[in-house]
């Protein structure tokens, strides 16, 4: 299991009353942002639990984050191999079960969720063909999901975007259905950074417990280490949202 935290101790949580909830962070070979996701969970007040792709049980986690990176090098289609990890079968089952395990896929995690068919559509190479790292403005289109309830509908947030294969595609019928069902959770504001269909940055499943997006909210959780706009902590809401949901609307 990957050592957490990376270095030093855990920074002080902003909402310590959420400390009871356990959020698993999955590490695949080639996962890069696992420590960052764990830090975000801790900063939001939760307890981060390291999960290994080869594990066959989920344990007692209340939610799961599948972080960014280049699992298996992305040498095949991004996420195509990770989707077959033993732990993914457990996650897929739990997400689809009545218990509706909350699952957040960030970047490579989003790609793994589409490969797992927990979310529709797919990601292809950015339209400009380059890796792009920038502070990205997103509009929260749906604040009713497990991961967005602490945002206002229509709120604009800034979080880092960094990827090579970030262009979201799906057939027109799927896109129309996503729009109609309110499952487009985030849209890029202003310039579309990768050619994604209908400026889609993130989507959810029908129940709203599974959310995937290309930008990185876990990199906008600590002042001074995230985007320069606002306090640089616009991403924290993802994690407080799910923690509040789990703890039962304590907020």
């Amino acid at each position, binding site marked *: 299991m990957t050592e957490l935290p990376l*270095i030093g101790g855990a920074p002080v949580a902003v909402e310590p009353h959420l400390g009871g909830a356990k959020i698993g962070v999955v590490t695949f070979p*080639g996962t890069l942002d696992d420590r960052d996701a764990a830090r975000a969970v801790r900063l939001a007040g939760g307890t981060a639990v390291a999960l290994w792709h080869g594990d066959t049980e989920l344990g007692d986690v209340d939610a799961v984050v599948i972080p960014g990176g280049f699992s298996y090098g992305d040498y095949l289609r991004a996420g195509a191999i990770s989707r077959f990890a033993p732990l993914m079968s457990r996650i897929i089952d739990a997400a689809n079960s009545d218990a509706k395990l909350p699952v957040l896929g960030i970047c490579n995690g989003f790609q793994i969720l589409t490969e797992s068919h927990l979310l529709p559509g797919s990601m292809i190479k950015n339209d400009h063909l*380059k890796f792009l790292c920038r502070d990205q403005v997103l509009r929260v289109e749906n604040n009713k999901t497990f991961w967005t309830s602490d945002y206002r509908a229509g709120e604009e947030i800034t979080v880092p975007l960094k990827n090579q294969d970030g262009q979201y595609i799906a057939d027109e019928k799927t896109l129309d259905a996503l729009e109609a069902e309110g499952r487009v959770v985030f849209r890029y504001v202003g310039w579309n950074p990768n050619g994604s269909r209908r400026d889609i940055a993130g989507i959810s499943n029908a129940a709203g417990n599974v959310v995937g997006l290309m930008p990185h909210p876990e*990199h906008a959780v600590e002042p001074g280490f995230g985007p320069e706009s606002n306090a640089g902590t616009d991403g924290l809401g993802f994690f407080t949202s799910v923690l509040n949901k789990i703890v039962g609307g304590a907020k």
Partner: protein
Amino acid sequence: MTTSAETVGKKFNIDTVENAAKTPDTELPWAELGLKQNEFEEIIKVLGRRPTGAELAMYSVMWSEHCSYKSSKNHLRQFGEKVTEEMKKDMLVGIGENAGVTNLGDGWAVTFKIESHNSPSFVEPYQGAATGIGGIVRDIISMGARPVAVMDPLRFGAIDHPDTARVMHGAVAGIGGYGNSLGLPNIGGEMVFDSVYQGNPLVNALAVGVMRHEDIRLANASGKGNKVVLFGARTGGDGIGGASVLASESFDDTKPSKRPAVQVGDPFAEKVLIECCLELFKGSLVEGIQDLGAAGISCATSELASNGDGGMQVELTSVLLRDPTLTPGEILMSESQERMMAVVTPENVAAFEAVMDKWAVEYSWLGEVTDTGRLIITWEGEVIVDVDPRTVAHDGPVYDRPFARPSWQDSVQADTFTGSVQDAGRPATSGELAAAITELIASPNMCSKAWITNQYDRYVGGNTAMAFPDDAGVVRVDEETGLGVALATDANGRYTYLDPYHGAQLALAEAYRNVATSGAVPMAVSDCLNFGSPEDPEVMWQLAEAIRGLSDACMELGVPVTGGNVSLYNQTGTVPIHPSPVVAVLGKLDDVARRTPSGWKEDGQAIYLLGTTAAELDGSEWSNLRGHLGGLPPKVDLSIERQLGEILVNASRDGMIDAAHDLSEGGLAAALVESALRYGVGARIALDELMERDGVDLFTALFSESQGRAIVSVPRSEEIRFKDMCTARGFAHLRIGVVDAAGGQLEINGVDTLSLDALSEAHEGTLPKYFG
């Protein structure tokens, strides 16, 4: 394995030691392997017989310029000699190991190193640059550290030359493709375009890692009976002779393409290797560890053995191969990436294997440590290498190469910019000066580097406190205390061409200043010395002078060189590159929250210029824009640099400044524009007092590249305290303006007002225009 070894073994006539002794007259391809006649004769003397084919392969790579530093060794000694006790205080590991280690306090240590990957990056830019990152990162892991960031100083040919796009696209994509996949933030670097680098681009790579003191690991094989293991990627045919043939010769059109000598990288394998090594360190499962870079297994076995108890026995058919047809010599020379060699006690073998299995990393046990003082390599039990490992790793040839001050040096230095043909029509009116500033900040070397840096992940790890385009990259080391490090790299080939001794010092001064500007206390230096052929006495003089200058300056500033690399033969035909010593300085911040960014933010803050300005335009970016290179570079005053550094660090620590930006290439004009564009906040500037005090005109005040200067923005409440501090230290300081958040423009008395939108468009537009 047994089956394949048997099959393979029969494909070659294995040249055993026994056979070599019996057949002294066998012709060997020493010249093709890059050895000189005298070196080949020396090998025979050392062994008392002719070398076997495998031994010849080992010596040829390990005695290459790249691995042995044979031309520079006599000069590099100065870095170890010009060191005071004070400078040694925080040096935990010095020159000679994979990378130097510096004490950060609180039980933390930091290791960093800069290296070149120049030749492969010209031949095959993507893989060359990618494996440059891979190699330097493995050096950092070998010390027991977790790598935490990378940087890449880049120098390309003329921006409008058709081949520059090939190299630039490939190198940037390679650095991004590899570095981004490792989860290491890229926090800075350099970008220079100059036709002198057309056939010899410089792709340097820096990596920094952190560890607890007790985790420091060294490359040595000790303990008789301990096991030697090779793990990571399999050994293939890539990079054979990379160090000897590619990195140690000049390019020449008449020779065949050298592409097979370029290694191919697999960043996924490297990422897994990083995690796997860190888990080995955590469990204290390895006694010694060495990465496989230049010269591959030849280097790892001979260095591990000679740094330890002196002996090692290895069975070469145990090496896992990607290509079963490789000969023993090729296996020894292969520079396949993402491999490590370690020494493990017999008790830890099972635990070691468990870590390998967890990360699905392949490994093979090659042999064991002995106390015989010999490195013995066998092929199916037959001895094919029997050498004293010191003779391979450390006792290579050392040349006292002749050097001579170039005959042209005097006339170049006499050709000053002021009054030259190129200086005709120097901007003077307010309109001309405004146009000159816009031209400067849109020029290839001064334009925004965002096109490059936006292709690099600067966020991963969550500890990046500052990155491009600020003066230094800053990374947090300890999340509880905020302890962190700042890093900057600098070089100015033009200055160094005009005066190698002072040019190298200017590179150090600028990197030192950049680190101090960020608020960090400069602590240590790593250098990458990029020069032409050492066989040219004029180039050798440049190298000798640069090393002398740099080592003198390190001593004066009190920052020791902890490691680095020398890259020679950067020349096409008889034309060398500008001498380009790239200097990296590492500094320490007790709390990265106190770092100082380069851009203005708060309306009404006072802008101060620290230091004085002289008419120093020779070698400047302005003279470059006018196609002139001559005269003498700006004057170096290291005591001024040291004082300036102390002021910047103290002001940052005590909250007296909110922004700071050093003045270097492009002078005050560039610094003002960059500070304004950083957050899109302008200023009103008046330089009349400066012009009067320093006796310079407005053009000189804006474009001179006098050293030891910086601009800072000071909150109103801190102004008196700040001025008092500068006065008490007797350091020149002058209020030159005020931050103007509302105007959206940069207003300089005597210069037509510049709108930030127009400046931004000019600054940002250049790279996309050339590279898409």
